[in-house]
């Protein structure tokens, strides 16, 4: 499939898939709370309704920011599906989120402000891990291009288990799910009114919803990238991750922002940075060019060599300590 076809499919199918996922999410959540829940198509009904509603604004310009939020979110996913540079994808994603925050700041309202500030804190929390994910993928595949990463023969999850877990942690933030639904929540917690989306109504709110659909599909596609060598497994894992998000959402209460930030960074350092450290130690010795690496053998190599290398220096140091 050419990049343009993939891009086109993403542009058309992502909102449909994202909306269905959102509807499914609400349904499963309802079932977990022993309710019947809304129809699967409910998110579409909501967005169609919002599109027809009056758009009440504090300042007219706030809507332009939301338009750019949607535009750059679509652009981010578009880059990803076209197989472009993963770093560029991350920066576009950050830019999109910044537009959202600016829109909320523009609508000078205290609730909107608190939501925007919390969104910034959340960005601080997830951004390092997202970058480390890209770096980890680069270290395994020797390319930042999504196209090359997806075409890499090995299952990245074996080389990057820590990065994957850290990425799951940030996904919980990006999906605005419960321990981290600080800036705005889809549930009936109302202490911040509606956080970052408080001042948006009508068409702008619909755009925010659609942007989230695009974003969610893009993020799940990133999960798929960890399993790209086995597409069927990748799809199963993406769905499993999504279900896991819903499960966590329903099980946990909301964290304070301090706890969210500290835990996200702890996860980044321990899982993300630790994983990359191990990778770099391991990849320092065998300087085999990545293109030559045979597809099925790569995961096996990772499995066998990492524990050895990590274990080898340790006995030496312990013995010297004992002598002293």
């Amino acid at each position, binding site marked *: 499939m050419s990049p343009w076809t993939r891009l086109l499919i993403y542009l058309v199918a992502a909102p449909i898939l994202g909306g269905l996922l959102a509807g499914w999410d609400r349904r499963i959540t309802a079932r977990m709370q022993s309710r*019947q829940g809304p129809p699967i198509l*409910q998110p579409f*009904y909501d967005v*169609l309704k919002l599109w027809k509603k009056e758009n009440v604004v504090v300042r007219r310009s706030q809507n332009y920011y939301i338009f750019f939020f949607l535009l750059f979110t679509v652009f981010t996913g578009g880059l990803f599906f076209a197989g472009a540079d993963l770093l560029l994808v991350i920066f576009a994603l950050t830019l999109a989120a910044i537009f959202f925050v600016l829109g909320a700041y523009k609508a000078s309202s205290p609730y909107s402000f608190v939501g925007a500030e919390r969104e910034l804190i959340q960005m601080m929390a997830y951004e390092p891990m997202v970058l480390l994910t890209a770096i980890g993928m680069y270290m395994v595949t020797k390319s930042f291009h999504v196209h090359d990463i997806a075409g890499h023969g090995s299952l990245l999850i074996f080389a990057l288990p820590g990065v994957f877990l850290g990425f799951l942690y940030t996904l919980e933030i990006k999906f605005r799910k419960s321990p981290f639904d600080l800036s705005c929540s889809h549930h009936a917690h109302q202490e911040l*009114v509606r956080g970052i989306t*408080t001042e948006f*109504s009508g068409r702008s709110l619909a755009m925010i919803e659609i942007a989230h659909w695009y974003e969610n599909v893009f993020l799940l596609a990133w999960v798929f990238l960890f399993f790209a060598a086995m597409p069927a497994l990748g799809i199963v894992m993406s769905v499993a991750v999504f279900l896991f998000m819903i499960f966590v959402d329903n099980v946990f209460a909301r964290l304070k922002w301090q706890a969210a930030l500290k835990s996200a960074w702890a996860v980044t350092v321990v899982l993300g940075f630790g994983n990359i450290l191990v990778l770099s130690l391991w990849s320092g010795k065998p300087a085999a060019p990545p293109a030559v690496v045979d597809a099925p053998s790569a995961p096996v190599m990772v499995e066998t060599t990492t524990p050895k290398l990590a274990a080898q220096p340790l006995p030496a140091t312990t013995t010297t300590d004992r002598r002293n």
Partner: protein
Amino acid sequence: MSRFAKSPWLIHYDASSCNGCDIEVLACLTPKFDVERLGVVNTGNPKHADIFLVTGAVNEQSREVIRNIYHQLPEPKVVVAVGVCASSGGIFAECYNIAGGVDGVIPVDVYVPGCAARPEAIIDGVVQALDVLERKQKEMTALANSLDKALFQRATKADAPEILALQKIAYQSEAEIYGEDSLPAQQQTLAELEADFESVPDMAKPFGWDGPLPVPVGPAQIVFLKAVVNGKIIGSVRGYQLGDTVCLRRLSVHPYFWRRGIGRQLVRELEAAFPAAKRFEIFTGRESSRSLGHFRKLGYQEFATTQFNPKVTWVYMQKDRA
């Protein structure tokens, strides 16, 4: 069912309820009733809501809050009064601090009886509200689609309440610039507006007019115009002729219909209604760049300013008949 009926989002406000009805409203969200299966979301945010549920009678403190929330709901919107207290004041109706039911403050579309209202009754009320919501939505689109059929007519005293409501909506943006209590257009009462049909009010004095105002004046000297679409007044303006000068006052257009030529057409119609006049004069606030630009486009030019109050400075603009 239309898209509106499938996704009603609620906001619930407790005016001064005993919490009986509130608990029943929340009971609707529980697994037993689960209104989310109808697409209902209980938002805490008026700007996201379609249906405004009010419980309890209105007291002097909650009156302003209710009005405020109501104005923050985007159109189309429906108000449901839940329980007898919200419907009529209930057993508190005669209390010294109670202003009565919710319909004393904002228009109510659906009344849900009961003390406390049962969850089934509340759900039924919401379902009835959906029909109202749909009807209002159709009216909105009908209005928007028939703009080219706007009629420009003389207003009569019977139109005064509707014009007053329109004026207050239209001047909302001005109130945001200058503050709520500094604009005469926002403060006008119905009696004062009715008087504007018969006599020349103070605000209609041309710039520099020292003498007393001629009261009463002939009907030819007062022209009160309205713009009507589908039977609804969406714009109005009044003109008063004193000598050769005509003062245009209180040009108001409903915010839905801004930038669509309604205001321009109203001014032109008004100018045509005074064939004997040689000069037209208006004033507007100095910070109101939108209306300043609007009148400049219509050929008016600034010639004087006066300080009206600490917040507001009027800019006078004039135009000679070509």
